[in-house]
């Protein structure tokens, strides 16, 4: 289900919105890849399309770039129709997943390609290419063929090539997925910094939730071709709207509870809730929000319960515990400590138990 209803999104375009996706659907044969997506991207925003493979995130990107045609709906940029233009007329550039550098051109020629193709003044080209290469710290490779470069270097050239045209919107299709973990972290930092400095709007596609959290101003979580939730990383993590969001982004515990008159009950646990209707509800509570009661400095309003430690996994800065509270298994993350076992008293704040929609 979409949490940004199509008509509501179209009606209330916020000021400064650069791109507007209105009720876009895409079918390949009988397969419905996108089911009425509506989304707005603000000028200068870093928005990430996050989802599992097959969720439709790359298809949405390709629709915006112009490599696919929507089955219905429309895309607007600065208020003008974008989806009716051929790709070469769109002021949008793409960083491709496998870089897609031209093998017959050297690095400088690759970067200059967009300037030549769009007939930028010839006198400007060398300087703009040099600027772009300096921006990604690849000046000394200007005369090198792409095949002689490492994956990370190719990635930088792909970025420089896409940015040299000064697009209003940069599309990035899992640009870091082919890099090893360390390089990936480094490139994430550089990418974020570059985006801040240039003020260009980034639409970033990834299946990596940590990457999405680290980079984005907002995350649009896609599931089976529909938007599950669109929100800032903090809100999406702390206030997941659905069970799917809660478990896709980070780890969580689900508690099925019966709500009556402002109190939720799940087995031996019982805590006050605000504005939750009576009936059965699912709550999500993050492992790091459950504490040893003894560790708490301020124990006001805490929900206290006793549970048996079943398993302890050392994870560097933290310990991951598996505890059993009257048959209900819970994951807990606490700071590093000596081995613990047996029954202990645990606690969580009712504020951290977030009611989520099932499904």
């Amino acid at each position, binding site marked *: 289900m979409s949490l940004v209803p199509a008509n509501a999104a179209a009606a209330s375009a916020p000021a400064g919105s650069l791109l507007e996706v209105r009720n876009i659907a895409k079918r390949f044969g009988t397969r419905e890849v996108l089911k009425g997506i509506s989304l707005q991207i603000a000028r200068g925003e870093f928005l990430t399309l996050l989802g599992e493979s097959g969720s439709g995130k790359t298809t949405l990107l390709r629709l915006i770039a112009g490599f696919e045609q929507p089955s219905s709906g429309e895309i607007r940029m600065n208020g003008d129709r974008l989806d009716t233009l051929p*790709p070469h007329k769109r002021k949008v550039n793409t960083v491709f997943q496998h870089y*897609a550098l031209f*093998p017959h051109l050297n690095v400088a020629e690759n970067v200059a*390609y967009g300037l030549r*193709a769009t007939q930028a003044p010839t006198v400007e080209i060398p300087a703009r290419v040099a600027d772009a290469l300096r921006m990604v710290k690849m000046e000394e490779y200007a005369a090198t*063929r792409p*095949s002689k470069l490492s994956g990370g270097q190719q990635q930088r050239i792909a970025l420089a090539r896409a940015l040299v045209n000064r697009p209003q919107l940069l599309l990035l299709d899992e640009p870091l997925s082919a890099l090893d973990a360390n390089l990936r972290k480094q490139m994430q930092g550089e990418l974020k910094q570059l985006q801040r400095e240039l003020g260009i709007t980034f639409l970033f596609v990834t299946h990596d939730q940590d990457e999405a959290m680290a980079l984005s101003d907002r995350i649009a979580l896609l599931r089976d071709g529909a938007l599950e939730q669109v929100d800032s990383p903090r809100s999406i993590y702390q206030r997941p709207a659905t069970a799917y969001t809660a478990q896709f982004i980070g780890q969580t515990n689900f508690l099925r509870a019966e709500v009556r008159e402002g109190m939720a009950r799940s087995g031996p646990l019982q805590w006050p809730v605000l504005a939750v209707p009576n009936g059965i509800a699912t709550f999500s509570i993050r492992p790091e929000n459950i504490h040893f009661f003894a560790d708490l400095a301020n124990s006001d309003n805490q929900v206290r319960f006793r549970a048996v430690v079943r398993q302890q996994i050392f994870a560097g800065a933290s310990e991951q515990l598996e505890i059993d509270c009257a048959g209900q298994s819970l994951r807990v993350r606490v700071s590093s400590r000596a081995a613990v076992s047996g029954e202990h008293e645990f606690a969580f704040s009712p504020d951290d138990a977030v009611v989520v929609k099932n499904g």
Partner: protein
Amino acid sequence: MYSRAYKAIVSLPPLLWVTLFLLIPYALMFAHSFWLVRDGMILHRWNLQNYAKIFQNPVYLEVLFRSMRIAASVTLLSLVLGYPLAYYMSFQAGVRKDLLYQLVIVPLWVSYLVRGYAWKTILGSQGILNGFLQYLHITNDPVSFFLYSPFAVILMLTHIYTPFVFLPLYASLEHIPRNLIEASQDLGASPRKTFLRVILPLSLPGLLAGTTFAFVLTLGDFLAPLLVGGPSSIMIANIVQSLFGTAYDWPLGSAISFCILLITVSLLFFTERLEKRWSFR
């Protein structure tokens, strides 16, 4: 790692084959080209007369140049037909790709001679083409230049060698990663510019291989002139054939053959160097 004995055993047959059927015949041919014929006998007397004859008698050079002109025409026409076909099949044909591919391949299974005779029945004065033109009253009398003319030779050889141009071209177009074409469009290049700056340069190795095939194979062809060519389109291979046959002048035939070999080998050498320069993977 393979043992030395194993390496020797597997490399022996091809070595033997090359020695017996290529090196020795070429060496014999090369030797013959410096001998001479007197009173129907080949005399093993070393001299340069045969090479002098090639340059003194204008017929040989004229025929050689004609052969090269025909080869160039066939190459160009095959390219004009083969490139659009390969391009269409690689980028536009979609599900019809496999069927079209078979349609290009199937004629290669038909004997060269059969295809030659087919052209004879199409182009002859009582042939299908003339019959059709007269039926439509476009012409009143049979058009004679269709058959037994350089036109017929070029037509037939173009028909035969277009698949040889098509196949390497198609392979190189199929190997162009599609995201390069998307990248080009994405960077603002129109379809025309994308073709000129990405597709064409990346298809050059295939284009080169195809044109080399067509040119070299046409240059050595002697059946097409025999079947559909007539006296006005004698090619250099026909002269070689007659010198080794009825004219019985093996030394001169060898000298001409050696000249053709030289042209072909230098062409192959040149194209291979170009191909190395143009391959980017």
